[in-house]
């Protein structure tokens, strides 16, 4: 039965080859563009998040509390009318207290790498120029496991700091500003007034000018003594095996240790919502293409139904059911959808390959870059499913109309 209806459907479409091909092209291009555009958008999003996730710690524990400690009197009399004004916290050395205990706790958590750091401000004086820098005291052996800085090194390595505790790693921009060379010494003055001379052991270049100019890395012990905060750190940097677990993990850590633990999602919430909005825009634009294609299908099938009134009447008078007639025309939509997908998906892949081969230079940058693309089976599934559904639904309306043709009305008019 179905083969008969399908063969009638195919003959109807073949009888109007040109129009069938035009409406088919609508589906084909719709599917192909859907794939190409969504690949680019998702690719750029993934690229963006990758940079975000890789270059920032997944979780930073800082030496702050999210909320101030409640005053003991307020805890003692929760229902009392207590007001305390002009509370002055006790002066103490800033930093995370008992960070070793926290690190022990963190090491017990699965899929997590943590490394302490102490950051402070300092000034480099060289040849009459003063440049403010951010001095990060790190554990060189551990830094590589929580940061991607090693991959930006153009000379030397972070681990060179292990062999020479009086070494410093600086950015390419600082080197240029102060006309420094690898192996030279620079003098750093901390805000406490202490001065120390470091030897340049390595240079990194991230491409972010302010970072390359101001960021420096030295051994943790040196910074602790320079800033007069021995045995203190003011942040713990955490990398996770699964970056997307950061939000939950941060909440868990913060609940346990009390210090503020900031996940990368929380730190870049604005960017995440921007990306979300971008996705919504992309999907609506791309869906519009397919909806327009669906109108093309509606158009051709309506035309076929109008032209085939006589055939519908004769089929019904022979003894075909209304549902058989409906199937004939729905099948036409399904066929256009299927063939459209079958042609559109490969065309989409071709478009993606072309896009992937593009290389261009961003003004001011020396490295040619290619478009970030993200291929996923689900994009193919969405494109195929949406095109297929649109084609089928577009066929359904004219098919219903065809099913309700009364043969007598047509035969009476034609005889």
């Amino acid at each position: 039965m179905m083969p008969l209806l399908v063969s009638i459907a195919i003959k109807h479409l073949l009888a109007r080859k040109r129009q069938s091909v035009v409406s088919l092209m609508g589906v084909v291009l719709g599917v192909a563009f859907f794939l190409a555009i969504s690949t680019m958008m998702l690719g750029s999003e993934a690229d963006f998040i990758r940079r975000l996730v890789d270059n920032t710690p997944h979780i930073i524990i800082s030496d702050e509390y999210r909320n101030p400690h409640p005053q003991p009197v307020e805890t003692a009399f929760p229902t009392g009318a207590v007001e305390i004004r002009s509370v002055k916290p006790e002066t103490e050395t800033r930093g995370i207290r008992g960070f070793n205990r926290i690190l022990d706790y963190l090491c017990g958590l699965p899929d997590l790498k943590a490394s302490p750091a102490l950051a402070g401000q300092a000034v480099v004086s060289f040849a009459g120029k003063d440049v403010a820098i951010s001095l990060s005291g790190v554990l060189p052996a551990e830094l590589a496991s929580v940061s991607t800085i090693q991959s930006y090194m153009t000379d030397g390595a972070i681990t060179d700091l292990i062999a020479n505790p009086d070494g410093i790693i600086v950015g390419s921009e600082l080197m240029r500003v102060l006309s420094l060379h690898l192996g030279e010494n620079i003098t750093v003055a901390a805000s406490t007034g202490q001065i120390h001379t470091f030897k340049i052991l390595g240079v990194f270049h991230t491409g972010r000018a302010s970072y390359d100019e101001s960021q420096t890395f030295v051994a943790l012990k040196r910074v602790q003594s320079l800033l007069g905060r021995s045995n203190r750190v003011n942040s713990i940097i955490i990398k996770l095996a699964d970056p997307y677990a950061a939000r939950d993990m941060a909440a868990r850590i913060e609940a346990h240790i009390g210090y503020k633990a900031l996940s990368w999602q929380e730190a870049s919430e604005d960017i995440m919502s921007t990306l979300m909005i971008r996705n919504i825009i992309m999907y609506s634009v791309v869906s519009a293409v397919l909806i327009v294609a669906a109108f093309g299908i509606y158009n051709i099938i309506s035309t076929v139904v109008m032209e085939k009134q006589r055939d519908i009447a004769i089929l019904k008078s022979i003894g075909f059911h209304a549902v058989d007639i409906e199937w004939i025309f729905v099948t036409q939509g399904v066929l256009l959808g299927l063939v459209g997908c079958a042609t559109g998906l490969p065309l989409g892949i071709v478009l993606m390959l072309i896009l992937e081969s593009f290389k261009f230079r961003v003004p001011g940058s020396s490295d040619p870059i290619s478009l970030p693309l993200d291929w996923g089976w689900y994009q193919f599934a969405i494109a195929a499913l949406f095109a297929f559904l649109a084609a089928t639904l577009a066929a359904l309306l004219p098919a219903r109309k065809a099913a309700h043709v009364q043969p007598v009305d047509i035969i009476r008019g034609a005889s």
Partner: protein
Amino acid sequence: MAIVLRSEHLTRKLAGDVPVTLVEDISLEVREGEFLAIIGPSGSGKSSLLYLLGLLDRPTEGRLWLNEVETSGYGEDELADIRLAHLGFVFQAHFLLPEFQALENVMLPMQRLRRLSPGETEARAQKLLADLGLAEQARKYPHQMSGGQSQRVAIARALANDPKIILADEPTGNLDTKSSGVVQQILKNLAHTQGRAVIAVTHDPGFAALADRTLKVVDGRLSA
């Protein structure tokens, strides 16, 4: 001979601002092997009567029996099934599907009924065409054939499921004298040699003269 088709007080009215009566109070009987001609002036309601007898249209009043089975309670799909298995139609315009070859057109009702295997279906279609002198035309499309040939293909299609009753609506209306004579002879043979009931609407007196019985319809009613 058994009665295959019987109607009582068959009436068909069209509702609307100006109600129209197409067929009024027609009672008749048709037997196996009978060739019945329905004649009457244009617009007299003879075609409308044929559509009612062929279950293409429903009467507003009256009843209709097909092989002694009352049909008024049937739904649209059940009526379609009866048309498929028990009735064959031939219209003035041949109404062949233009994208299908003559043979495929004849096979359609059999493919819908699915009583025969695909092989048997094709063999039967070939035989039906050959019997009507169309063996050569089997693989031709409707636009490649003459009017007379197309009408004979339409008759072959009407015979596909071996129906007891053939209904023909001005079957020779579009044909030249020679083709028309051939078609008339075929219809007559269907009744007299194959034992089918043939009901033909016509306004060709020569054609009506071949019939066993002639009914005249005037203004929707049978007239003597």
